[in-house]
């Protein structure tokens, strides 16, 4: 029983981290139809920038926020200079964003070197609660809380505010949105920046959990994609449920069938897609 509870907890907390990452990817994907291979790089760079802020004497909260903001700027630049011209060209998007991913990977190696680092977390968030034989690290609970907060705020913004309505209008029918006076250009840029910010936030938070190291970008990217495609592109609910599914499948797969663990993760995903090519909550 203890095994199941602790694996469940680990799966949910990893799922929460994935939600932060994949929520942003899903926004960019579903709302803007951009296949963004740079998303893993935003995650990695977010972690590194946060690390640097802490090295320079900043505190944890400042580090996470600055990491997220810096990467939002990077994302805006990339979108403005290249991606906005490539709408509807999947191949062009894949190759351009892959090019950026390689460049960012190399720049990160140049600036921060090849050693793995862990972002030091404040004392409040370290340690663990123990219940009987069970052990619940505070930091993992913190990640779940952050993800829940982000999910609620995103949902409120998208569904309950004027700007959220403008975003949804831009997605559903850009021409009409432009026609009724919505600045589609600004809204699109804002969505892309928001997606990049969430990825960087995930990277900074993950820095205190799995660490920051070269290769983390391409390691986590397929997970984020799988979450988005299973949940359905552009669906917040889909990203949430997809993240939990992937987090749990990944954890239980690794614990129960170590030799087949990635198979137990990706094969069910492919099977879901075989039945529903647009994902669980996606619209065609």
């Amino acid at each position, binding site marked *: 029983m203890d095994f199941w509870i602790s694996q469940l907890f680990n799966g949910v907390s990893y799922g929460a981290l994935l939600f932060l990452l994949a929520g942003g990817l899903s926004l960019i994907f579903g709302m803007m139809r951009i296949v963004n291979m740079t998303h893993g790089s935003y995650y990695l760079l977010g972690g590194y920038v946060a690390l640097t802020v802490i090295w320079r004497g900043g505190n944890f909260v400042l580090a996470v926020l600055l990491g997220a903001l810096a990467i939002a700027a990077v994302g805006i630049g990339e979108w403005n200079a290249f991606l906005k011209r490539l709408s509807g060209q999947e191949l062009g998007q894949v*190759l351009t964003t892959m090019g950026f991913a390689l*460049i960012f990977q*190399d720049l990160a190696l140049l600036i921060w070197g090849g050693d793995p680092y862990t972002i030091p977390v404040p004392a409040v968030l370290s340690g663990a609660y123990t219940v009987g034989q069970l052990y619940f690290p505070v930091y993992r609970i913190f990640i779940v809380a952050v993800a829940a907060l982000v999910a609620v705020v995103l949902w409120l913004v998208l569904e309950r505010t004027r700007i959220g309505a403008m975003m949804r209008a831009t997605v559903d029918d850009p021409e009409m949105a432009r026609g009724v006076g919505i600045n589609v250009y600004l809204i699109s840029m804002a969505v892309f920046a928001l997606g990049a910010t969430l990825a960087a936030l995930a990277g900074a938070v993950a820095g205190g959990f799995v660490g920051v190291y070269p290769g983390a970008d391409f390691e986590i990217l397929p997970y984020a994609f799988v979450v988005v*495609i299973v949940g359905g*592109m552009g669906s917040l609910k889909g990203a949430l449920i997809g993240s939990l599914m992937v987090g749990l499948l990944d954890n239980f797969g690794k614990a129960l069938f170590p030799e*087949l663990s*990635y*198979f137990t993760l*990706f094969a069910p995903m492919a099977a879901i897609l*075989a039945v529903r090519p647009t994902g669980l909550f996606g619209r065609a």
Partner: protein
Amino acid sequence: MTRRALAPGTPRIAIAIVFGLLAVSPPFVSSFLQALLTQAVIYAILAMSLDVVLGYIGLASLGHAAYLGLGAYSVGILATRHGAGFWVTLTVGVLLATAVAAVFGLVALRATGVYFLMITLALGMVVWGLAHRWVSLTQGDNGISGVPRPDLGLPWSFAHAIPFYYLVFTAFLVAFGVLRGIVRSPFGATLVGIRESESRMRTLGYHVWLHKYIGFIIAGGVGGFAGVLWAYDNGFVSPADLELSTSVEILLMVALGGRGTLLGPALGAGLIVFLKNLVSVYTQRWLLILGAVYIGTIVYAPEGIVGALRQWTKGERAWAGR
């Protein structure tokens, strides 16, 4: 300033010269170049196979490295552990890749566009996951080393670079001949028709799905063929051969050369192999340069080198005709 249009036969002459050089030059160049040429020719086969899907069916696949991996692991496992010979590993590798493509095609071809891209990504990761984690079969991240060069029972040994190069070059000619025959056949013309307008072809009474499915399977089988050669060339098989970034790199080769032209992707493969290896001799920052090539391809040559050349010669002719 006078400008002359390129004669209509020029591309054909250029292609003949390149093929001639590929056939004749290897014994006269350094062993480093020989190794690069061998690798380039193998990747050319792989890029041509993906071109059937990307260039002729018009679907971008993010999982083509899976077939390279299936072919390569067939060799890695059978040759090192069971002492299987070239023809056995070749047959198993190609059949396995074909069979897996037949299964994956059932799943992937339900979608188009960005959804096809994502489903092929997930399927590619399934194969990568097996290579990465099924340690008792694949030795996981350590990979399988010590794959011997093939022995075909011929009087010369393929352990030497030159005979092995000619083996690979022959394989390239065979793959090119087969794929050219396919894309120029009525079947290939139907694929192009589907790429241009699926609904029109359906109205005309073509079985659209079946054509795409067969094309997808052919691409997988030829990809496995390239994987078999790659394992023998490299002597080492690892999950890195199946990574997402490998799949994207094959897409780049096709896009850089010019999709839908077979020889364009072969050229693109050659250029990328040379670029990666030569640049990494001079600088550690070769990923920066490779990244710039990805972006530059889309910005400056969205239809690839062959597309750009066509555009250019067309412009020249239009100019000359005034």
